[in-house]
């Protein structure tokens, strides 16, 4: 506030100084102009009265007499001059004129009146005055000239007096002089003889006594009045400025400060300013500005809050997306037939790339690497759909080709955003190493053969998914042998760009991969990522970078096929699907011997099919194992008991939840029905895990 006051004081001060200077200027100029004009008017007045005196004197002067006097004086030499002078002075005519002039001078208050000739004895006009008459103010205490006395002509009058002699006319100039006593003015008038010739001049000098005082008074009044007026105007103006300028400006300043301090609260003080000038306009503009800023800030606050909310949600989305991708490695610690590792580095918060891998049953591993067109949230949403569909269909035992085709059709159904996705899908049959795969517009995989080099695996591509309905996909097979590796990736790898706009490219990628032949899957990806990072350096990452690496190690050798049928009632054999029929035949034979009804035989066949195939599929994950089936009749021959024994992983099929049999076809899971069917058709079912063995016993009455 102090600052504002200072500033406002400054404004008043500036205005006051300005007015002061203006006032001074006006006073000085009016003084100067007044002084000059006043002087000239007064001086002219005095001068005119000097001339009037001269002309009055002229009435009593006889030009021829004066001529006579001058001739007599000029003719006299320096010795005779005093006597000639005295002679002239004694003459009556001279005395008469001298008296007249004396009275005139006295009555007119002239300094002096004189008659003199400027000519010398030769008649030439010079600078010396030869006096004839001289009437002085006795107070001056200066002796008057007598006829014949001379004095130097006042030099400033010389040109004018010459002019007078030549023309016989008075000069247009006014004669002024300054003496110790003050300002004087003179009139010089020619005296002519009867022939009109100038024979002498009469001079009258008047003191301009009133001039000086009047002038001083004038200046005093002017200064005093000017100063008073200036002060008054400054005073009035300062009040005006304070009311109409400083106060509104202070209000505006305070309001602006209050606006800032009170967090954009707008008061109505500004609208009260009604000076009707630019300041009111300014107040109006500032008020408008305050309102605008207020609403902008409100809007901005909302937008910021919204953005923060979206940001927070995006973070959640990022986490959800990351959580969707299998990210716990090793992913299948119990499987030593293969190693798999994958990574995804999104370019934005959420990306369109994804990888996936999952088991289909016990023997098959599905792998997906895909890239949804576009980035950000839309791509991420599409990615979720695609990933889910792919997994669902692949796990529903559809082939690779069928999976892609079905997913394509599903994605096309409601693809208004016209997004698409490139997918590489492969399903590895773990025991055989047969990899069935299809490429829907995706990058070619890179294959490493044990002891060789990584090479791009070029195969024909199908059309991208979600691009067009009912597109056919091509399936192809790769036989993986132990030690082989497969590297899958998205275009974020090959299209990684450095600051010089160069692409990383497949060539660099394969070269980098070949440095990793001895590394495990995790390190393969790490080394490759480092190579990409080195190449890209400081350039920003444009696309998601997704990589997946599979190393196939193969299955340990099968146990020797040893299907020795120890007895008619017990069968021990390799727990493989090929042996299901053997078990069924074995049971059929035993049941026939027991005279079991056809329906029971069939039901037991189904039970064996379900249970033994389950054991074959799931009991032994690492290496093949054996299973034993014992069949024996109830003691009273009213039924039969079948016992299945294996040394596989502990698994109680009775704990498995029953499927919901009321769902529609589309909602039903494919599979999971086997044990349920057995439960329904058998009369008895028991499970125990004993001595490292799964023992499952089923009973059926005839």
């Amino acid at each position, binding site marked *: 506030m102090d600052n504002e006051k200072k500033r406002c004081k400054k404004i008043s001060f500036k205005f006051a100084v300005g007015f002061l200077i203006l006032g001074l200027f006006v006073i000085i100029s009016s003084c100067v102009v007044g002084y000059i004009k006043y002087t000239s008017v007064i001086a002219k007045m005095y001068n005119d009265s000097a001339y009037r005196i001269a002309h009055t004197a002229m009435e009593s002067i006889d030009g021829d007499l004066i001529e006579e006097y001058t001739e007599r004086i000029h003719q006299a030499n320096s010795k005779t001059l005093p006597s000639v002078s005295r002679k002239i002075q004694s003459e009556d005519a001279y005395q008469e004129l001298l008296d007249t002039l004396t009275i005139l001078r006295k009555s007119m208050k002239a300094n002096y009146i004189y008659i003199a000739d400027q000519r010398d004895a030769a008649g030439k006009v010079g600078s010396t005055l030869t006096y004839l008459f001289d009437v002085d103010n006795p107070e001056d205490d200066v002796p008057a000239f007598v006829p014949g006395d001379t004095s130097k002509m006042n030099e400033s009058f010389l040109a004018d007096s010459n002019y007078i002699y030549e023309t016989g006319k008075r000069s247009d100039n006014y004669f002024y002089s300054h003496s110790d006593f003050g300002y004087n003015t003179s009139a010089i008038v020619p005296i002519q003889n009867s022939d009109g010739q100038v024979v002498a001049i009469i001079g009258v000098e008047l003191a301009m006594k009133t001039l000086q005082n009047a002038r001083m008074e004038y200046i005093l009044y002017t200064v005093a009045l000017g100063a008073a007026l200036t002060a008054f105007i400054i005073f009035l103006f300062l009040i005006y400025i304070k009311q109409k300028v400083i106060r509104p400006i202070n209000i505006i300043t305070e309001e602006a400060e209050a606006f800032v301090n009170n967090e954009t609260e707008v008061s109505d003080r500004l609208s009260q300013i009604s000076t009707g000038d630019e300041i009111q306009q300014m107040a109006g503009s500032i008020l408008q500005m305050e309102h605008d800023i207020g609403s902008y800030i409100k809007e901005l606050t909302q937008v910021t809050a919204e953005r923060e909310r979206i940001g927070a949600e995006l973070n959640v989305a990022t986490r959800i997306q990351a959580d969707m991708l299998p990210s716990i490695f090793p992913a299948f610690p119990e499987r030593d037939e293969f190693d798999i590792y994958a990574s995804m580095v999104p370019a934005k918060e959420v990306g369109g790339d994804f990888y996936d891998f999952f088991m289909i049953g016990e023997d098959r591993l599905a792998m997906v690497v895909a890239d949804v067109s576009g980035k950000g949230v839309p791509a991420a949403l599409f990615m979720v759909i695609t990933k889910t569909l792919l997994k669902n269909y692949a796990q*529903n*035992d*559809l*082939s690779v080709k*069928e999976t892609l085709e*079905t997913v394509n*059709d599903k994605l096309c159904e409601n693809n208004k955003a016209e997004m698409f996705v490139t997918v590489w899908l492969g399903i590895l049959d773990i025991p055989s190493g047969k990899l069935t795969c299809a490429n829907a517009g995706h990058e070619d995989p890179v294959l490493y053969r044990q002891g060789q080099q990584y090479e791009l695996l070029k195969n024909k591509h199908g059309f991208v998914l979600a691009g067009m309905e*009912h597109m056919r996909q091509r399936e192809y097979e790769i036989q993986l042998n132990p030690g082989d590796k497969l590297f899958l990736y998205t275009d974020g790898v090959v299209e990684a760009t450095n600051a010089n706009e160069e692409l990383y490219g497949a060539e660099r990628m394969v070269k980098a991969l070949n440095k990793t032949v001895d590394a495990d899957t995790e390190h393969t990806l790490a080394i490759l990522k480092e190579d990409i990072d080195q190449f890209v350096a400081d350039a920003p990452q444009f696309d998601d970078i997704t990589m997946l690496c599979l190393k196939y190690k193969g299955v340990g050798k099968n146990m020797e096929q040893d299907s020795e049928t120890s007895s008619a009632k017990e069968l021990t054999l390799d727990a493989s*699907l*090929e042996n*299901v*029929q053997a078990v*069924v035949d074995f049971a059929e034979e035993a049941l026939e011997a027991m005279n079991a009804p056809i*329906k029971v035989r*069939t*039901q037991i*066949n*189904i039970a064996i*099919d*379900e249970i*033994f*195939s389950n054991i074959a599929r799931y009991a032994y994950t690492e290496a093949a194992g054996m299973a034993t089936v014992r069949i024996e009749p109830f003691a009273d021959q009213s039924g039969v008991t079948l016992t299945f024994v294996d040394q596989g992983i502990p698994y109680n099929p009775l704990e498995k939840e029953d*499927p*919901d*049999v*009321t*769902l*529609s*076809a*589309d909602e*039903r899971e*494919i*599979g*999971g*029905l*086997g044990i*349920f*069917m057995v439960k*329904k*058709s058998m009369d008895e079912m028991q499970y125990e895990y004993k001595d490292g063995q799964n023992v499952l016993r089923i009973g059926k009455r005839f």
Partner: protein
Amino acid sequence: MKIIGKKDGAQLDIKLEGRLDTTTAPELETYLGENFTEDVSELFFDFDSLAYISSAGLRILLSAQKKMNSRSGTMKFKNVNELIMDIFDAVGFVDIFTIE
């Protein structure tokens, strides 16, 4: 198991003889993969000579039904024996399948 199929335009007739179990189910899966193409909108199974079905068979049938649903086609079973009917009943497939 024996698969006797007849394809006539959009109609595919399949007659199964024997057992549809773990061992034989892949045969049917392969057969359907080849013949139950997208142009097929009517699929008829004749189970007159089919002894029984295990869950491996059921999953193929369910898969076929889903596929058919997605293309709004018709899939029907005829001559289903008592045992298979019991199985269909037990697993709730009687509500899903059209059985004549």
